[in-house]
């Protein structure tokens, strides 16, 4: 493993610990979950609207055990179903979903949305490659596949495109349901359809286990909860299969990643190629976990940020040619010759 990958792995583990135990650590440090009032307004369900806190422990939306979340912190794409509470509010899809249902005034959402845009403007889709807890779990599954010598399956470009369309479809349906149940005429469906994507998201079943808490695997009390239970199992199965047989296949259809990807081409973190140095070895295309090949195919100098790129910089790591592929931050090179070790194979290439 090369230095960027090692750094990334350490970052992923630290992020996972912070995301899972963040609020717990904060409480130990500060003495309570209460935070000082910040520029960020505290968003709450208005009277007559449902909130996650109204669900009993063990109901479909809620894992068993206490799940405190520090509400006052900015949203940073962290699932609120973390067993010991995240240091941040919630996943951005959760954020939009619940506030559409609550019909929160847009002015109260602006500080959060601005911060989200700022983070995406600076880091693009780095979240997916460096922080995302279920991405970390997925990378571990990929690691297991390698250890068990199971061959990697490469999926064609069209298949990955279709996955993205599926992800957009799921996102649109989830947000549409959240909007509809927020209307007074449909308010009685809130207890069944609140946060529809969260109910099938694999993070809801995976994250509680990191806090040694048994997630709520099933709820067969009504037809709708039975449907959500079965859908959640299917999505979890797809998630495990996607990471086990391929690399980061799930990330093509993750709605949260898709929202992030809108900012990728204009992000501050850039992937730059100097075409004259490229020897067409194909290492970059071969190692890309998202199966992207553009930086290999293109023969011009320039920025090769793509929507699906998760900014893991493995391509920069494995590139045998110095200065051919570089990671940049607003045009300034953040990779230097001495900092990142060349691969052993690279030394053999003239």
């Amino acid at each position, binding site marked *: 493993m090369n230095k960027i990958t090692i750094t990334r792995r350490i970052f992923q583990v630290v992020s996972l610990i912070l995301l899972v135990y963040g609020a717990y650590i904060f409480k130990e440090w500060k003495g309570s979950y209460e935070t000082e009032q910040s520029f960020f*307004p505290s968003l709450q369900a208005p*009277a*007559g*609207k*449902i909130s996650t806190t109204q669900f009993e422990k063990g109901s479909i939306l809620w894992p068993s055990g206490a799940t405190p979340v520090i509400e006052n912190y900015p949203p940073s794409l962290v699932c609120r179903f973390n067993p010991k509470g995240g240091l941040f509010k919630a996943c951005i899809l959760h954020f939009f979903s619940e506030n559409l249902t609550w019909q929160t005034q847009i*002015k*109260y959402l*602006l*500080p959060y*949305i*601005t911060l989200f*845009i*700022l983070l*995406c*403007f600076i880091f693009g889709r780095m979240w997916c490659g460096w922080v995302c807890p279920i991405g970390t779990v997925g990378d571990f599954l990929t690691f297991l596949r390698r250890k068990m010598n199971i061959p990697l399956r490469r999926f064609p470009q069209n298949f990955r495109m279709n996955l993205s369309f599926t992800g957009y479809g799921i996102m649109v349906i989830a947000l549409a349901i959240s909007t509809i*149940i927020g*209307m*007074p*005429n*449909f*308010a*009685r*469906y*809130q*207890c069944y359809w609140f946060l529809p994507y969260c109910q099938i998201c694999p993070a809801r079943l995976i994250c509680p286990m990191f806090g040694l808490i048994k997630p709520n695997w099933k709820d067969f009390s009504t037809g709708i909860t039975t449907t959500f239970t079965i859908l959640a199992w299917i999505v979890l199965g797809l998630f495990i299969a996607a990471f086990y047989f391929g690399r980061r296949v799930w990330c093509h259809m993750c709605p949260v990643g898709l929202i992030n990807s809108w*900012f990728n*081409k*204009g*992000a501050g973190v850039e992937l730059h190629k100097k075409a004259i140095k490229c020897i067409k070895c194909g290492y970059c295309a071969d190692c890309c976990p998202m199966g992207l090949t*553009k930086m290999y195919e*293109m023969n*011009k100098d*320039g*920025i*090769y*940020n793509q929507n699906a790129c998760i900014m893991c910089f493995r391509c920069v790591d494995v590139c045998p040619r110095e200065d051919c592929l570089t990671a940049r931050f607003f045009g300034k090179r953040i990779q230097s010759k001495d900092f990142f070790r060349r691969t052993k194979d690279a030394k053999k290439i003239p």
Partner: protein
Amino acid sequence: MKKIFLFFLFVLYAFVLEADEIPIEFEYPAIAGDFYVAGTVFFPPLSVPDPDNILVIDKSTEKEVISKITVIEKWPDGSILSAEIVFPASSQRKTRYAILYGDKVRRKKSFTDASVLPTISFVVPGAGKTVESMDVSVGQINVRVDRSASIRYWWYLLPALILIFLTILRTLRTIRIQRK
């Protein structure tokens, strides 16, 4: 494709037409005998022009239950926004009730003067639960009123728009480089 879209619209329309029933939730009291069930229900605009367009039904028999309906607020168009609904129930016969409303329904059974009976509050799904009593510890109560102007939040629009503008500019630049 057009047919599928029309079918989808039809299903949605049918769904909205059928969505004029609100189930009622309340806990039967430990006391034996009759009691009143009361609660406030909110209605969407234009859906209930008159209190007689609201009725309570017994879900087991699908028959109307006698009720007293008092209009509390109205929408600007004159339709009912919220109404207090009271109807009798008995703990000897535990059943489920629902409220039907809309142009299609017409209330036939009503009463105006209620007997002296215990009253239980009902809730409708999605609405906050009401409580019969509330204990407040005697002591100082601090109330903080947020008097900050909306500008405190609206000013975030400026950096957000600048960031979106910069993102679009940089995205266009990246696409231009990649197309060269």
